[in-house]
């Protein structure tokens, strides 16, 4: 019903012509969305529009009824509709074409319906015919407005394109209507559509005696008057097309056109033009190819140079011609420049030594040859027979005899000559040919002999080729990446031949893998060579997976994966640990089986390193452990959705982490730094976060068992009384600390569905440890109160009640238990009634996280917590004792914890229960309280801290909320800015508050109150232009000053002198960006009066 109410409102808005177009669009979108979500059906809409349908006001009727419906259909193009609905709608619009007032709506509606594609509810041919007929008979195109004319032409175009049969039935009528429509058209965009319509018509009625032919002279007359087209280049017109674009476009078009000719005219008619075309293709290729060949990582799987549109079209044309007629290849083969290539190649050994012209020759010829080879099996055979063998000779690569030996084994001194140009050409040819291997199902149908020829050539040379590429890689040194690049790319090309008929045998394939793997394992630093080899291996891995090459997959597993995984496992290896991890994770992510293997390897590596550390105190091992965990979090977890089965392996990994910790009972050594614990926590959190509920339960169960076996449960027995809590220190053993942190992480990551065995003792454990100063325990508490279902009451009881109920005789106040109110022990510690300062600050932090958990799920108890925190911000508590400054600061920061989004816990990734608008709710509760406290604050410190807290709340709430309350908030924000600018400690808070202010300045909603407060705003901003602690604050303040110029002139003019003075000082700012802003701002402010400077 609510939807309907809104609907009426939106309808009103749309029909009202006095409203702005944006307003119309908005209401339109609103209705369309509800239709799309099927909240509303079309029929319902029509019923609701009843009033507008029957009204006598023409304008309203036209807008309300027809245009609205039509626009609606335009939005709903992708939504399936009932055929009957479509049918009736078409009928409706067709009828309305005759009524001139509603013609736009009718046209839009028809167009939207006709354009529907591929979804349920298409317009039938009969209906389309009716539309065309009605249009031809009743719409006078040339008497309509510009936009409507365009709609007409588009409708014609669509009809002709989508319902050709129906239009043929109409015959003469259609042609006649088109003639009439075009006659006298002046607008270029309309004409463009119109020309296309004529083209479609001509295609539809090709017969020489058909309707188009009979009207041809008329049509020609209408159209010819637009020719010749003039290309007028107007200066400074942004929409105009520059000369270069035009010439490029024409080149592309002519190449495309030639390709169409080749397709349509057939071989015999094209033949006499071959020479001309060939030279044109050559010219285009030479002109569009650059000489920069990239030897970078990213070009390993691409051609390595930039390809323009002309280039692409030229290549397409060449390929088409060769595919169609093998004799075209004769021209290519006889071309003098192609023939010369071998001389060019053998003249230089290094690419960078080549002259630019030679580089160009090499690149273009290898393009020409590889494109021709790619065209068909025959052409590939020819190219390989003519060129490849010769190329091999030039490079000194020898073939093997039938017995498998190399031809001149005895004379091994004849070495291969690694000409870069030749290698490039060779690689291009190999890459081109690999696409010609048919996939296995086509295999049988292709005659064997046809595809054997080039295959056998490659096969003859494969051993030496692989050797040549290998030696290229190995001979490379660091300062020349070309050798390594060409070598690796060559090996990659050799390794990517598909299927059983591959010219590269399995043993050769394995040799390629071994070579690449050895490059990875042999390097001790991250060189270009190393990265190239890794990328090549990853490419091959994904290629194997893509084409289901089971044999090759086995080789890959045996050679690459196992090798790398065993490196991960062994602690002694020349390769730095992070590099092994990177290589392994990259390579293994290509196939689920490898991933499984890798995670297994990781598990073993983790366990052995961890125990090595525990027993021998080897800090290197624990460092390896942290790196391994980081690799899991950063490399594997983000790809969880891509890799099947990864989740299962990771859950297993997490459980074996717990196992390992459980079995390492004695930790002889302390962790060196917190990296390991942090990494382990992060990994645990994220694995639990992504795992299914069952897996989460099993991890938590495991973790719980480990906890019970540790000394931690002893903490649960610590009564939550002041006396017991007072002496708490961070006194856990290293192992317990690790277990506690990991368990907290698991709890943080768990979903609300996961089950916890003993909520009460868990809560107690976390309470005590958070009071001992473990933040993760506090976060875990927050997560628990956020996610617990039925256990929530019990949990809250444990947190808030039991403490005071357990006989707290120091409390003189009546212990009537308000829920989480200031009477509980926790609140009292926060307020500093008892305990040390440390205990107090920890309690405040803990309370903030608990509050956040409750706040996000919309629990009422958060109000009490907010109340306690606010109490902490007062300078004295209710019994008159002064609060320590540090406690005040923690209380103020608690508001940041409450309001900001945390990366670590209580977010969507970790399944937090998030009620919508929870920030807004908290904002509306706390802001009035804080405001009134600021007014009555007793000490400057308390005032500052109240402002900090308020700034946290204000700057984290969505900006629209601020805009709705600008009038009330602006004075507080300004006061906050001036209070916070005193101390450098609050610079970040100040900056976020300033950003809120700048948001209100630019928005239309805030304009009025900004204008009212202009003097105070300017005063405050002027002060901030010299804020010494943070550059962005100065910069933003100056930008805000410039923005203020949008206010009415009379409001700001009086402050001109003051602002200019401040900004002139900022010209001398130590930071360039501030100076630049100051110049802009100064120019702007100077120009509001006379040009003369006021000094």
């Amino acid at each position, binding site marked *: 019903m609510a939807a309907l109410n809104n609907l009426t409102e939106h309808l009103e808005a749309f029909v009202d012509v006095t409203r702005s177009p944006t307003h119309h669009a908005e209401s339109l979108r609103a209705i369309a969305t509800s239709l799309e979500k099927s909240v509303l059906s079309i029929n319902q809409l029509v019923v609701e529009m009843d009033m507008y349908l029957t009204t006598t006001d023409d304008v309203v009727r036209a807008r309300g009824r027809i245009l609205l419906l039509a626009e609606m259909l335009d939005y709903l193009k992708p939504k399936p509709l009932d055929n009957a609905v479509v049918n009736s709608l078409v009928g409706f619009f067709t009828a309305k074409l005759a009524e001139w007032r509603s013609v736009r709506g009718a046209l839009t509606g028809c167009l939207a319906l006709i354009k529907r594609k591929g979804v349920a509810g298409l317009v039938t041919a009969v209906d389309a015919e009716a539309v065309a007929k009605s249009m031809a008979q009743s719409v006078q195109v040339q008497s309509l407005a510009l936009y409507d004319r365009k709609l007409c032409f588009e409708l014609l175009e669509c009809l002709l394109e989508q319902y050709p049969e129906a239009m043929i039935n109409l015959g003469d009528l259609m042609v006649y209507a088109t003639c009439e429509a075009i006659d006298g058209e002046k607008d270029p965009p309309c004409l463009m559509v119109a020309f296309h319509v004529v083209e479609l018509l001509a295609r539809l009625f090709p017969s020489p005696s058909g309707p188009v032919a009979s009207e041809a002279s008329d049509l020609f007359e209408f159209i010819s008057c637009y020719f010749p087209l003039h290309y007028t280049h107007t200066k400074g017109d942004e929409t105009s097309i520059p000369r270069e674009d035009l010439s490029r476009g024409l080149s592309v078009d002519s190449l495309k056109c030639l390709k169409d000719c080749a397709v349509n005219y057939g071989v015999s008619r094209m033949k006499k033009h071959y020479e001309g075309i060939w030279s044109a293709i050559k010219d285009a290729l030479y002109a569009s190819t650059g000489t920069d060949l990239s030897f970078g990582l990213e070009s390993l799987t691409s051609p390595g140079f930039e390809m323009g549109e002309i280039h692409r079209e030229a290549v397409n044309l060449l390929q088409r011609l060769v595919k169609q007629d093998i004799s075209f290849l004769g021209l290519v083969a006889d071309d003098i420049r192609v023939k010369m290539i071998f001389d060019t190649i053998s003249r230089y050994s290094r690419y960078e030594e080549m002259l630019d012209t030679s580089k160009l020759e090499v690149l273009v010829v290898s393009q020409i040859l590889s494109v021709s080879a790619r065209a068909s099996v025959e052409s590939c055979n020819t190219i390989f027979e003519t060129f490849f063998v010769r190329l091999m000779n030039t490079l000194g690569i020898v073939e093997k005899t039938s017995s498998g030996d190399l031809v001149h084994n005895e004379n091994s001194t004849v070495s291969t000559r690694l000409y870069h140009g030749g290698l490039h050409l060779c690689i291009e040819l190999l890459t081109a040919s690999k696409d010609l291997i048919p996939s296995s199902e086509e295999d049988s149908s292709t005659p064997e002999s046809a595809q054997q020829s080039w295959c056998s050539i490659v096969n003859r040379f494969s051993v030496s080729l692989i050797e040549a590429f290998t030696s290229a890689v190995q001979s490379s040194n660091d300062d020349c990446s070309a050798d390594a690049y060409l070598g690796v790319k060559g090996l990659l090309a050799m390794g990517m031949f598909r299927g059983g008929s591959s010219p590269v045998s399995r043993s050769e394939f394995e040799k390629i893998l071994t070579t690449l793997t050895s490059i990875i394992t042999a390097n001790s630093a991250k060189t270009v060579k190393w990265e190239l080899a890794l990328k090549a291996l990853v490419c091959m891995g994904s290629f194997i997976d893509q084409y289901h090459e089971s044999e090759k997959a086995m080789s890959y597993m045996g050679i690459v994966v196992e090798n790398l995984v065993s490196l991960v496992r062994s602690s002694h290896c020349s390769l730095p640990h992070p590099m092994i991890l990177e290589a392994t994770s990259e390579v293994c992510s290509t196939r689920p089986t490898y991933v499984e293997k890798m995670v297994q390897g990781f598990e073993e590596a983790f366990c052995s390193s961890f125990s090595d550390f525990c027993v021998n105190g080897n800090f290197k091992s624990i460092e390896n452990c942290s790196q391994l965990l980081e690799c899991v979090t950063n490399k594997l977890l983000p790809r969880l959705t891509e890799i099947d089965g990864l989740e299962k392996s990771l859950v297993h990994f997490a459980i074996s982490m717990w196992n390992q910790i459980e079995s390492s009972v004695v930790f002889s050594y302390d962790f060196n730094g917190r990296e390991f614990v942090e990494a382990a926590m992060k990994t645990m959190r994220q694995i639990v976060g992504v795992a299914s509920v069952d897996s989460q339960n099993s991890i938590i169960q495991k973790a719980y068992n480990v906890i019970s076996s540790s000394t931690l449960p002893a903490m649960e027995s610590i009564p939550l009384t002041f006396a017991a809590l007072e002496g708490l220190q961070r006194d856990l053993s290293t192992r317990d600390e690790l277990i506690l942190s990991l368990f907290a992480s698991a709890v943080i990551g768990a979903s609300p569905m996961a089950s916890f065995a003993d909520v009460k003792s868990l809560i107690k454990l976390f309470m005590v440890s958070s009071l001992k100063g473990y933040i993760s325990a506090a976060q875990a508490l927050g997560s628990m109160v956020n996610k617990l279902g039925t256990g929530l009451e019990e949990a809250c009881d444990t947190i808030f009640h039991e403490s005071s109920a357990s006989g707290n005789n120091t409390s003189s106040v009546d212990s009537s238990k308000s829920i989480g109110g200031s009477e509980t022990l926790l609140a009292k510690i926060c307020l500093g009634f008892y305990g040390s300062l440390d205990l107090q600050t920890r309690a405040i932090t803990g309370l903030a996280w608990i509050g956040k958990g409750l706040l996000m799920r919309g629990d009422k108890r958060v109000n009490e917590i907010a109340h306690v925190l606010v109490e902490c911000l007062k300078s004295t508590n209710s019994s008159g004792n002064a609060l320590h400054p540090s406690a005040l600061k923690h209380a103020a920061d608690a508001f940041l914890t409450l309001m900001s989004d945390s990366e670590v816990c209580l977010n969507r990734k970790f399944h937090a229960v998030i009620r919508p608008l929870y920030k807004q709710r908290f904002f509306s509760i706390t802001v009035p309280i804080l405001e009134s406290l600021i007014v009555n604050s007793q000490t400057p410190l308390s005032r500052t801290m109240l402002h900090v807290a308020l700034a946290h709340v204000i700057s984290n709430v969505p900006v629209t909320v601020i805009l709705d309350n600008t009038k009330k908030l602006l004075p507080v924000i300004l006061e906050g800015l001036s209070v916070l600018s005193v101390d450098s400690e609050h610079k970040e808070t100040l900056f976020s508050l300033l950003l809120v202010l700048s948001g209100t300045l630019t928005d239309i909603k805030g304009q009025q109150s900004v204008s009212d407060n202009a003097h105070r705003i300017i005063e405050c901003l002027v002060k901030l232009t010299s804020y010494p602690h943070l*550059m*962005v604050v100065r*910069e933003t303040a100056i930008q805000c000053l410039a923005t203020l110029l949008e206010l009415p002139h009379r409001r700001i003019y009086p402050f001109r002198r003051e602002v200019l003075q401040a900004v*002139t*000082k900022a*010209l*001398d700012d*130590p*930071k*360039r*960006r501030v*100076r*630049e802003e100051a*110049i*802009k701002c*100064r*120019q702007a402010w*100077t120009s509001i009066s006379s*040009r003369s*400077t006021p*000094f």
Partner: protein
Amino acid sequence: MTLGLLNANPVVQAKKERLARTQDQHRDYDGLDTLDTKYVRDIRDPEHPYSLEQLSVLSEDSITLDDKLNRILITFTPTIQHCRMATIIGLCLRAKLKECLPLHYKVDIRVSPGSHADEDSVNKQLNDKERVVAALENPNLRQLVDECICSNEI
């Protein structure tokens, strides 16, 4: 101005790469950015639609900055010896710097030695406070200068 352009066909050089602003440099780093010379290079030539940098009237080397003494010396090279525009270019430089620089800098503007037929008098005119102020009070000149220094680059 019946003679048409003074230098009808000037040589146009490429602009120097502008330092792109990177997003991350704005926090943390609190060093002192030195005052730089780019304020003036985008001033448009009074005659041609090119900037002074493109016409090689100014280059980075032709600007000397002494931060201790708060002095700036700009030496520019008019495109041709008899350039009547030399004084106007100088005036533009001065007006622009007045807008962009803190007040405590003393700016000296000269034509580079030997590049102008009337070198001494141009130098004298450009560094004479009274004459500069007087020139900028002339509405026609003021408009020309404003058009030249109003650039959209900064």
